[in-house]
Each structure stands twice: as structure tokens, then as C-alpha cells.
């Protein structure tokens, strides 16, 4: 497949974390139920609009989570999965841990947005463990989210500090879930993962061909229908 002749470059420069968060937020369908992972994915909440009517889930037992709590709002009994004090929106609900994970594992969340160490060409996700022999492993709710949500979006920088691609043919880090990632948002481009392999929806600060040179997996431009 030719990588030229299709212009899918939508910005002149790579995107910053906040620009990327804005992009993810824009792509979430109105009325969705969403879980935002800790770290970079949390930024997405800053760009969700009231009109979108998005309901945020936190796995420690709540739907309808509001923004971080400040000052007098802080209540030690109201925290998110990152253990940060948050607020409650009208229409919120509380439930216990098994009921909360039933929401995730039962396929009821429309989207979860996660960070990642690596994503494979077939959507395998590695985001919980470096595999280093002296590392103390900790998994939390990552595997449940990766396996349970209808769509798993990953947000990450495309390259490691050493310049290696985090989109790989096959993950070298221990897996979080098999074939679960459907979309990858990076500073250099947005990737769709599906039966047709890795498709590029848009690029930031580079052409598709330049992107291909960075990545060890074959890329193709996304078909119009997938956009």
C-alpha cells in the first residue's frame, strides 16, 4: 500500500500532552461512560464539555465523578482510583468494589483511556510491569479495564527516551491484556488497531512516511470509513 498521496498530517508539530488530551476528549461520543487511567489520561477530563454529557467511572466505587476537590471540598471518603480527593456530580452513584468491577468486566464502559509502555500491532497492551527482575509488581485494575471496556484507548508518547517505538510487533514487556487496544493517541499520530492492522488516522509534525520509518510495524492510512 502506498504511503504517499494521502495527506493525513493535521498539525505542523508534535502534540503536547494537553493538546493530545483535548483530541481524545473530542473523540469521545456524547453520553459515553468512561474510565480515565491515572497520569496522562486524567488530563482528558479537563477537555470534556458539558454538552458531551460524559459520565466518569472510578473503579473504587463511583459513577459521576467530578473534578479534583480543592480546599473545603476535600473529603477523605471521596477519592478516585489514584487516591486523589475528587468531587461528586449530580446523578452520581456509589457502589462496592465487586459491583464497580462488574461495570468494567461486564463490558458496560464505553471507553477506558490508559497509559502504556508498549502496544503491539494486534492490540496487545503492556502497561503494568517492566519485567525487571528486582521490580515489585503491582497491577491494580489495569487488567480489568483492558479486558472489560468496549474500547481501550491508549495515550502515550510514541517513542521511549531512547527513541524506540512503543508501538511494536510484539510486546517485550509483560502483557496487561491480549488484543484489547483499539486506538493509540501519541504525540506524533493517532493509530487505529483492528483487523486490517495498524492504520494511521492523522499525524502531527511528520508525514506518514516519516512515521513509518520510526515504527517497526507496517502502517497504512486509515480508510475514510474508519475516521
Amino acid at each position: 500500500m502506498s504511503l504517499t498521496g494521502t495527506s493525513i498530517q493535521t498539525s505542523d508539530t508534535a502534540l503536547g500532552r494537553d493538546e493530545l488530551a483535548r483530541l481524545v476528549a473530542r473523540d469521545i461520543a456524547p453520553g459515553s461512560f468512561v474510565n480515565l487511567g491515572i497520569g496522562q489520561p486524567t488530563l482528558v477530563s479537563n477537555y470534556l464539555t458539558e454538552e458531551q454529557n460524559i459520565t466518569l467511572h472510578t473503579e473504587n466505587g463511583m459513577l459521576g465523578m467530578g473534578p479534583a476537590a480543592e480546599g473545603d471540598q476535600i473529603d477523605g471518603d471521596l477519592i478516585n482510583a489514584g487516591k486523589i480527593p475528587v468531587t461528586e456530580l449530580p446523578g452520581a452513584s456509589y457502589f462496592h468494589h465487586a459491583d464497580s468491577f462488574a461495570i468494567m468486566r461486564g463490558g458496560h464502559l464505553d471507553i477506558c483511556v490508559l497509559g502504556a509502555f508498549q502496544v503491539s500491532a494486534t492490540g496487545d497492551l503492556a502497561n503494568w510491569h517492566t519485567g525487571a527482575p528486582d521490580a515489585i509488581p503491582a497491577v491494580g485494575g489495569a487488567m480489568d479495564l483492558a479486558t472489560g471496556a468496549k474500547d481501550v484507548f491508549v495515550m502515550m508518547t510514541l517513542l521511549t527516551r531512547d527513541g524506540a517505538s512503543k508501538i511494536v510487533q510484539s510486546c517485550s514487556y509483560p502483557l496487561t491484556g491480549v488484543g484489547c487496544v483499539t486506538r493509540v493517541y501519541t504525540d506524533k499520530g493517532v493509530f487505529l488497531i483492528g483487523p486490517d492492522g495498524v492504520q494511521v488516522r492523522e499525524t502531527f509534525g511528520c508525514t506518514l512516511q516519516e512515521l513509518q520509518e520510526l515504527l517497526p510495524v507496517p502502517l497504512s492510512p486509515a480508510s475514510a470509513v474508519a475516521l
Partner: protein
Amino acid sequence: MLEFVESVQAAVAGIRDGSTVMIGGFGNAGQPFELIDALLECGATDLTVVNNNAGQGDQGLAVLIREGRVRKMICSFPRQSDSWHFDARYKAGEIELELVPQGNLAERIRAAGAGIGGFFTPTGYGTMLAEGKETRILDGRGQVFETPLHADVALIKAHVADGKGNLVYRKTARNFGPIMAAAAKRTIVQVSELVPTGALDPENIVTPGIYVNTVVRIAGSTSGAGNTGRTETTAATGKVA
């Protein structure tokens, strides 16, 4: 039989060496700190502890671990910025770790309380946390066989109890409390408030008294207020909980 006791010491009396103890809470929310302190004081050792984490800072479960009372941790997220006591014991090979995805932890606890002998779940399929476990394709998906997690004792924190031991919780402090109460042979609850039987709306009771054995009110405690909930920072970009 349900009992109401006057002190946390009386509440934890009789917890034996070698017990499996579930401890409620997610971060500080719902952590029964006073009951954990009493467990430390009572001297029980060689414990298997089930909690989402493996202790934070220099309080509660972290101190139990520091003092060598915990033989094994069953949890989903041991490594945190302030889990130094667990980290030290683990690296010294002095504590056993069973790492369980958080949803499997919750569902295994729920299964114990509900009389389920085991279940298949897609969570963890194809990962190192499923190594050595039975797997099966069900509904077109790879699934892993998981077994119930029973406990001798559960220590949990609720907001209000009535005279029948019925419980309600506050906000996200509910977390593991209801399922641990059902999974343990003996459930010990610390509450902020006791009300007469009939004062709680039957529609709103979260844990029916059938799951509760011992209730102690912590004088002067008010759930949430004055509890600022610490902010955790973590090294990985991965999902943290």
C-alpha cells in the same frame, strides 16, 4: 451472634496467629485504622492479609508488616511511593506476595461470600498472572479459572450501624467493606455512629446485619472530615489503583 463492644481491644480479641485477615479500605478511605492498631497491639502474628494495597507510610497495615506479623499479602497494588515497609520485607524475602488483578480480588472475595466454588474470567488471560492457572475459551474469549478468597476475620470501617448490625457507608469509603463482611467467618466493624434499630431506611442498607459479628464505635471519629486523603504518586505511566 452480634455483639457491640466498648473498645477496639475487645473487638479484635481472639484473633489467632495464622489467621487470614481481610482489611477493608482503598487508600485511606474506608481503612479501619483503629482496628488495625488494635490488631497490632493484640500480638497476633503469622497472618495472611487481604487488602488492595500492602501498607502505606508508617501507619496501619504498614506497621503490621514492619513488625513482621504478616506472612503473606494478597493484594493488587503493593508498590506505592510510600510502601517502604512492604518493599523492604519483600526484597529481603521475608513476606510472600500473591498479586491479584483488582477485579479478580473483588470477585474472588464476593465469590467466597456468595458460595461460589470458582469462576472463569477474561481478566488476566494471556498474562503472567494467569501462568499455571486453568484456562478455557468461553463465549469466544480466553478465560482464567479463579477461586474464592475466604477469611477468618474481616476488619472493616462503616459509617453508621443500627442495633441489628445493619451498615451504611460513606462515598468511596464503601469499597471492599460489603464484600469482605460477607467473605469472613467473623466480621468486625468500626463505625462513626450507632443509631437505634429502625433508624436506617431498609431500602438503603448496604450490609445487612447477618454479615456482622462485632461492632465498635470509634468515639469522636467522623468519617471523611479532617481526613485529607493522601495523594499517591507512582513511577509507571500504567494504570494505578
